[in-house]
């Protein structure tokens, strides 16, 4: 199993009587591509933060790639995240004032290190794969279009060769054409590298790209909140 949740319960320490997330059991097997849909405020961000180790569950077991995130300390979770999990957000995937290459290099810095020389070549080939023209490699990313930025974000998420990729509404700031570009780039990469993909969106039109579709309301036992 790539992801396995068991009796997970989460509430913010400052508001312990308000349940945010309650999951009896939910799992994703390795190399699966899962589309999770649900409205905002359904505990979606919390679920993703638990899986990436940015948050820890109040109670219950959170296993990713067979490792128990809930019993790791902060440092271990940071390392685990850098080495095994790629993450793409709706926006702000990159440090805006540094260029694409630096952004990707920065992401690599926190994982187990390979040789820097190989790295630069790897970054360049990744950027080419995602159709980022060479003239844009050394511009601060804030000068690039949103479409380009989201594609660089995939490259950034992929540089450490993660086994799990989490995408949190990555297409919602893109127009139709860019969205299609983004999705095809993402899906081909994922199947090529046999990565487990967890894709969260409220845009049901994207569901056709996926083999498994889950509704967040089915996973989370805490009802919809406003």
């Amino acid at each position: 199993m790539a992801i396995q949740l068991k009796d997970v319960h989460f509430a913010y320490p400052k508001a312990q009587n308000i349940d945010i997330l309650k999951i009896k059991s939910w799992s994703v097997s390795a190399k699966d591509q899962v589309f999770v849909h649900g409205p905002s405020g359904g505990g979606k961000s919390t679920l993703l933060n638990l899986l990436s180790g940015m948050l820890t569950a109040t109670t219950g077991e959170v296993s990713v790639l067979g490792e128990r995130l809930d019993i790791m300390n902060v440092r271990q979770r940071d390392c685990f995240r850098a080495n095994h999990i790629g993450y793409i957000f709706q926006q702000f995937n990159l440090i805006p004032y540094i260029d694409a290459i630096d952004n990707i290099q920065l992401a690599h810095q926190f994982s187990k290190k390979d040789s820097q020389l190989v790295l630069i070549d790897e970054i360049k080939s990744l950027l080419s794969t995602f159709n980022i023209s060479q003239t844009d490699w050394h511009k601060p990313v804030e000068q690039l279009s949103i479409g380009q930025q989201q594609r660089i974000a995939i490259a950034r998420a992929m540089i450490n060769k993660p086994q799990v990729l989490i995408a949190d509404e990555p297409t919602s700031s893109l127009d139709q054409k860019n969205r299609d570009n983004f999705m095809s780039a993402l899906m081909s990469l994922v199947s090529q590298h046999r990565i487990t993909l967890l894709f969260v969106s409220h845009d049901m039109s994207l569901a056709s790209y996926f083999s498994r579709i889950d509704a967040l309301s089915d996973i989370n036992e805490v009802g919809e909140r406003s």
Partner: protein
Amino acid sequence: MFARLASKSLLNRKGSVLLTIMAMTVSIFVLLGVEHIRGQSKQSFNSTVSGVDLIVGARTGSLNLLLYSVFRLGSPTNDIDWETYRHISSSQKVDWSIPISLGDSHKGFRVMGTTTDYFKYFSYGKKRHLEFSSGEAFEQIFDVVLGAQVAKKLGYSLDDMVVLAHGLGRTSFRLHDKSPFRVVGILAATGTPIDQTVHISLQGIEAIHMDWQNGVAIDGTAVTDMQLQALELKPKNITAFMLGLTSRMATFGVQRDINNYRKEPLSAILPGVALSELWQMMGLLENTLRLISGLILISALLGLSAMMLASIKEREQEIYLLRVIGAPPSYLFLLIELEALLISFISMVVGTAALYLCLFIARDALSANFGLHIGLNILSFNNILLLLLVAGSTMLAAAIPSLTAYKSVNRSQ
């Protein structure tokens, strides 16, 4: 990569960073400037006289005697009888002596009557003797030796004729214009009040006062040079004298003897002791300046801290992103610290350079108008310590925003 991220992040916030750098630069400029000028003026003060064991004048406070005899500041209280000087300086314990006669001026520069022993024995700084940049010591009654600044400012060279004025004013109406002096020597610059002094022989002092009575010139009785030579002038009074003793052990004994001298009331002072007394008086001013420059630094550092703190709020997403790609909290802490240190470092470089430039431009004016000789070696051991202190305080001040960044990590939990 780490340093590049920090510097690019600063470049991305040019406006606020630039203002912070300016505030820090001003504070470092003031801090270093105060410290440097303080150290330099202390050194300059302490090096005005060396190798002189005792300074003797009419009974007065030690500071007053020091100020008028060495710094040519203020007025002598009373004269000493020539015989008294002869008596004391002929003592066995006295190795050498330099009589000083003050009271006249030349275009704002003080005239000092003395003997050639002055050029032989007087020393300043680290026991350095006076040197002539051109010419030699006076021999004739109407010979004059100029300090370096006097010659430079008034444009005198050897063999020029100089008319001395009575009294100390810059524009005296009573010129000793019947007895012009000839420039026979110009001293090398010393960085002490000697540079601002006009030296003539004691006989010269007597000569220019000969046809004066009670400070007023009597017309029609002009004496010629020839007559004066023939008269073999003998000084009646001098203002003060300096003593070099055969043994330093004897200093206190001789001092006591002079202070108890029966025939007229005298004061003998140890120049080193008087200098440190003088410096103690300046201590209050010194500490006030230090305190003010310290407060300026603190306010600049608080400004830096506030700017960084505000930037943390702006950069919440950036910090979150760094966390997601695996940056540990300590990385964020160090990133903010590094940014603050970069600002501080740039300010140090700019502040030091600006101070250097200002001193370079102002040094001539300072030495000409205040007799302050300021070197350009700003990066003394003390000032490097001070800069390290600034770096340390920067880290301390940046700890507040850095900790905020560090903690922002856990805020979502």
